[in-house]
């Protein structure tokens, strides 16, 4: 069981900054995120896009903002459970919470802060009628263990980096690799596109474009995919079909936690501390809603700050905390590091 002071669900900018604000109050944080890396939308959707409304940064790439946040919170040594989705929450008799992920990892904390952005990122599934019948029976949306494809016939569809990269990787593993894409052009990095072209020329990848996988065939498992190319429809022998069309955010299991939801977002008390209808559970950043809500990173930072102050009071109801400026108090990390303003030189005057 992982134990912490504040369990943060979502490792996007708001969740990451909450670690810093909690750290100033000497509270430890642990973050859970369904994605395999921190950064949320900034890393997953638009790492190379500039953001212009972060105070103090006239322009900063989303990926760089995440890198800076990671550096900023380093002294507070947060824990991470990445690549796992927060599935269930249980309130214990003492008012603390146990959150369990889809892989069974348990986390225990007196405070839960949901900073889930638009939700957990789920694979975008192509509209093939019997797709769900073959899930885990030959259809996978995420490649977790490439070894399962050894000596198998694999069909990948999609035109982005994931589709290109995995097609390249699996040529050394699978019996055959077929890449199906609706266009002749690909969205991926130029060197990946060139590598696929090279492997196609060597006969190691079969490229079928412009085409779509429109059907799946099999009894107990996947046996063939149905491909439509122009007016022609044909079947292709296939043990594994891997549709790689990116990720789409869904609120997911959080929606079943008994929280008050409005317009796909969690209602909070913004006049006070961004707490939800369940005491001890907060929601900050894009995942929450209240009158006048703006889904901006800077608003998430503000909400994270107030949430941490309130969390401190919940954990230590008898302690009186006085807000300090970092320019005065400095930043004292859990790793022994300390940053503070240099003291003025004092010289005695005779």
């Amino acid at each position, binding site marked *: 069981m992982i134990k912490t002071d504040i369990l943060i669900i979502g490792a996007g900018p708001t969740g990451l900054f909450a670690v810093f604000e909690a750290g100033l109050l000497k509270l430890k944080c642990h973050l859970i995120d369904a994605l395999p890396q921190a950064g949320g939308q900034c890393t997953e959707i*638009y790492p190379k896009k500039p953001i212009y409304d972060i105070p103090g940064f006239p322009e900063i790439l989303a990926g760089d903002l995440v890198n800076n946040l990671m550096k900023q919170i380093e002294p507070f040594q947060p824990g991470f459970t990445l690549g796992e989705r927060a599935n269930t929450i249980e309130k214990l008799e003492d008012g603390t919470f146990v959150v369990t992920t889809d892989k069974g990892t348990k986390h225990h904390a007196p405070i839960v802060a949901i900073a889930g952005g638009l939700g957990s990122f789920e694979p*975008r599934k192509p*509209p093939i009628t019997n797709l769900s019948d073959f899930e885990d029976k030959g259809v996978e949306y995420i490649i977790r263990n490439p070894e399962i494809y050894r000596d198998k016939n694999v069909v990948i569809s999609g035109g982005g980096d994931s589709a290109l990269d995995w097609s390249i990787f699996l040529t050394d593993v699978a019996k055959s690799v077929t890449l199906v894409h609706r266009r002749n052009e690909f969205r991926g990095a130029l060197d990946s596109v060139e590598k696929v072209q090279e492997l196609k020329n060597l006969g190691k990848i079969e490229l079928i474009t412009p085409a779509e996988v429109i059907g799946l065939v099999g009894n107990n498992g996947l046996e063939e995919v149905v491909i439509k190319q122009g007016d022609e429809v044909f079947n292709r022998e296939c043990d594994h079909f891997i549709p790689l069309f990116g990720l789409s955010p869904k*609120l997911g299991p959080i929606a079943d936690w008994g929280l008050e939801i409005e*317009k796909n*977002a969690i209602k909070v008390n913004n006049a006070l501390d961004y707490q939800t209808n369940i005491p001890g559970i907060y929601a900050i950043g894009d995942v929450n809603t209240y009158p006048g809500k703006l889904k901006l990173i800077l608003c998430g930072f503000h909400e994270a700050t107030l949430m941490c102050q309130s969390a401190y009071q919940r954990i230590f109801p008898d302690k009186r905390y006085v807000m300090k400026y970092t320019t005065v108090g400095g930043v004292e990390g859990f790793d022994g590091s300390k940053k503070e303003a240099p003291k003025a030189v004092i010289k005695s005057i005779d």
Partner: protein
Amino acid sequence: MKDIKVTIVDRHGVKHKVDAPTDMNMNLMEIVRSYELAPEGTIGICGGMAMCASCQCYVESPHQLPEMSYDEDLMLSEAFNVKENSRLSCQIFIKEELDGLEVELAPEV
């Protein structure tokens, strides 16, 4: 500058004729959001950067729209339920010449 009329068919097939301002640098996805014609979290997920296709629409009127950017074209090459008249509504900026535009929102995926 004036408001124009835009007709938007939502994902339930309901037709909405709405006013769209031409002087606020708004795009069609933002119009859909401001009139709440699709639930939050199901449209404009990437914020209007042509990076998610959640705001895909079908242009039903014969308006001459600006040519697709490279990003929009490639995003639509990966999206689902794409038709000949598909566009990303976040890339359609509200201008006077679009008065009377009619679009239908593509299904949510």
